[in-house]
């Protein structure tokens, strides 16, 4: 017996993401999904961001990792609430994993929620979590070719933080080339160079977050 289904495989995910999105809207929480390959500096950026903004905003972080609570511990050390999701082998976060931990977050008392996805430039780009913004971190030692090699990631994100610019002179990374490659994949995205370690360029990022927060209060 043949049965025609004609069903989008991502249908359940999309529905779960929409469910999350409604909750984020109700509580007027700004939600940012941060993705990158392992070691690009997501956690360091979040530590510094949490430290810089926690006086002005009530911040919470969801950490996605295959195993361990290490990243959540690092973020908690800055005094910010952090919930760890151990995906137990899955290489990405999906919207149902997020929905399950939302009771631990208390959205009504959260202005900004950062979701640090599992370090991977492929699968996380396929899953909408219900966030307001998707951003990607690329570090200079990884090289320019990550942009054309992982087009979907740079296609679905609206901002590419180029981290570790303090190492720029030790690498062959070319910022102009990165902006040009990005424009070909996604004309509405742009690069933002910074160093989480030295703090160079970090104010641009903090201002971006603040503006995104203001915009999310008006919707």
């Amino acid at each position, binding site marked *: *017996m*043949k*049965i025609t*289904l*004609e069903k989008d*495989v*991502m249908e359940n995910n999309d529905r779960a993401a929409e469910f999350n999105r409604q909750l984020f809207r109700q509580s007027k929480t700004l939600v940012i999904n941060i993705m990158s390959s392992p070691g690009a500096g997501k956690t360091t950026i979040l530590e510094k961001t949490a430290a810089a903004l926690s006086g002005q905003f009530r911040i919470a972080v969801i950490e996605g990792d295959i195993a361990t609570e290490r990243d959540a511990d690092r973020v908690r050390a800055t005094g910010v609430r952090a919930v760890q999701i151990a995906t137990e082998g*899955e290489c990405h976060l*999906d919207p149902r994993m997020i929905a399950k931990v939302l009771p631990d977050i208390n959205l009504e008392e959260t202005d900004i929620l950062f979701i640090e996805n599992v370090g991977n430039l492929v699968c996380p780009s396929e899953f909408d979590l219900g966030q307001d913004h998707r951003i990607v971190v690329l570090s200079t030692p990884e090289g320019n070719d990550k942009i054309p090699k992982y*087009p979907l990631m740079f296609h679905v994100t609206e901002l590419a933080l180029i981290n570790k610019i303090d190492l720029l002179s030790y690498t062959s990374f070319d910022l102009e080339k990165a902006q040009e490659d990005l424009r070909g994949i996604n004309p509405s995205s742009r690069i933002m160079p910074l160093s989480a370690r030295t703090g160079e360029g970090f104010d641009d990022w903090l201002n971006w977050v603040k503006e995104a927060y203001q915009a999310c209060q008006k919707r």
Partner: protein
Amino acid sequence: MGLMEEALQMVSEDAEKHGLETIDKVSLIVGDLSNVLPDALRFAFDAFCKTGEIPRIGERAQLEIIRERGLARCALCGKEYEPSEYLALCPECDMPFGVIQSGETFKIESYEGS
């Protein structure tokens, strides 16, 4: 693995509603631009067939992957062409940002069970 599991769970649940005991064949439509790799899907499918962890998906199940070609339309001259990934560049007038017409699909077309 995650995407294949998602697809097979959907098929398995639907088959249960139709009172089917085993699934003989699953047909998926995979677009060239969907970022889903057919080889990875086949690998995952074989793994799930062997472990038997998804109800009604057993060792004898077959997988069919129907390819959907990528198609973009040039924003300038209107020409339709097959883009390479997301860098949709028109071969006629060299204009980038072609609008994707097809090739992003990832869906279950049908399945056969008994």
